[in-house]
């Protein structure tokens, strides 16, 4: 399976990559891990005249904690993120999700920035980042832009990033109060499968630890883009943790109603909505129980 010829540029810095990209015209593509781009070039779905690779740029794979924020370099690989100690401690939901992407081989070279920019509605890294209220830093020739991830995705394979811009970093606010998260993904087999539906559920208590300060629920694979479901979130926000268990069913119903899945080769829309309902319940049970137990310990 041959790849059509293209010009290749290995950028030495992000600035260099932006200049090269600007000079190369709109059909140029940025290469991160290549697990999507190279595949699509093989299938002749994407035929770029120029490919600008970020692999020689140093220091785009970091995970750092600074002033209450977690910074993740766009070139950080799924396999590394899945076992990163900072992420495991603060936002384990992201580790859970990226650890379910593809195979070990894919996770060893695929990057979180690439997964987001590929913008599959079912991308596993997206729902946890939505549920963590993350932002993305987009590098442009005029300087960096910070955009909430809720406005990053525009449609299947479409993002807000312009053809001469590059995703540079993901920003996550570190939870201040006790928090817990859960990501569940429906697949036809246990490994190496695209998500039929993914549910990310993240909750943080209020400063007392007794009430739910905030709940964020995000769905993947059941709408043209990964989505948040605010109606479902408000069902639980502000409640005492013990009382919240009774509202789980309502919350799950609202999440399922807010999803907009389509019938496709993998499953029917009805089935996917039902799964959203079931998974939101399971996630909520797990997260609320974790929060309850954390309080018991402290």
């Amino acid at each position, binding site marked *: *399976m*041959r*790849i*059509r*010829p*293209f*010009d*290749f540029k*290995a950028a030495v810095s992000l600035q260099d990559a932006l200049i090269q990209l600007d000079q190369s015209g709109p059909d140029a593509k940025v*290469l991160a891990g*290549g*697990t999507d781009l*190279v*595949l699509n*070039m*093989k*299938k002749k779905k994407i035929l770029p005249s120029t*490919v600008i*690779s970020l*692999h*020689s740029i140093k220091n785009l794979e970091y995970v750092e904690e600074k002033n209450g924020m977690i910074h993740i370099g766009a070139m950080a690989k799924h*396999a590394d993120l899945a076992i990163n100690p900072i992420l495991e401690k603060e936002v384990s939901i992201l580790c859970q999700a990226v650890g379910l992407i*593809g*195979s*070990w*081989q*894919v996770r*060893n*070279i695929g990057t979180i920035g690439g997964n987001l920019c590929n913008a599959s509605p079912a991308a596993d890294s997206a729902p946890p980042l939505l549920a963590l209220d993350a932002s993305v830093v987009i590098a442009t020739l005029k300087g960096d832009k910070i955009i909430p991830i809720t406005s990053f995705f525009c449609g299947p394979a479409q993002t807000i990033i312009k053809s001469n811009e590059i995703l540079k970093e993901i920003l996550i606010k570190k939870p201040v109060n006790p928090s817990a998260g859960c990501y569940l993904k429906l697949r036809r087999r*246990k*490994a*190496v499968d695209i998500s039929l539906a993914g549910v990310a559920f993240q909750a943080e208590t209020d400063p007392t630890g007794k009430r739910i300060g905030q709940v964020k629920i995000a769905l993947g694979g059941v709408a043209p883009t990964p989505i948040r479901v605010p109606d479902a979130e408000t069902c639980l926000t502000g409640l005492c943790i013990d009382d919240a268990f009774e509202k789980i069913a309502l919350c799950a119903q609202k999440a399922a109603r807010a999803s907009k899945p389509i019938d496709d080769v993998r499953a029917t829309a009805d089935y996917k909505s039902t799964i959203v309902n079931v998974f939101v319940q399971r996630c909520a049970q797990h997260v609320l129980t974790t929060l309850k137990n954390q309080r018991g310990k402290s």
Partner: protein
Amino acid sequence: MKHVRIHLVVNGEDYSLFITPNRVLLDVLREDLELTGTKEGCGLGKCGACTVLLDGRPVHACLTLALQADGCQITTIEGIGEKEVHPLQEAFIDKGAIQCGFCTPGMINTAKALLDANANPSEDEIKQAIAGNLCRCTGYNKIVDAIHSCGCQSEKEKGEVR
């Protein structure tokens, strides 16, 4: 399309190659270096037959542009057990974990990376690790057995040293 120079260290040997950018690592290994132990199965990153170790980590050589591996260490099946049969290869033979053999180079590479990181993996960890390596003879039980016995072996050896 301009040719580009890349440097690869394959199985400990330095190679300086002049290639076109549109070539994947798998093709360069097989065609330019004549290391045909690495197999092309699906060519789409689904079957794992082309698994090689890039700086010690299993990746699909069919989805990695050779240019992405510039300056990296690559291990192919030819580099495993070069002088004598590797314990993993021994275990695959002993347990009958080879049927048609097409998945074996990729399978051994993934297993080696697993054992390098975790000398005594559980059955579940082995299954997770080789989830991306398909065996269409479906000889998975024997493959898992082989990797498991090799893990136990290395654990035993450690015990003897102590």
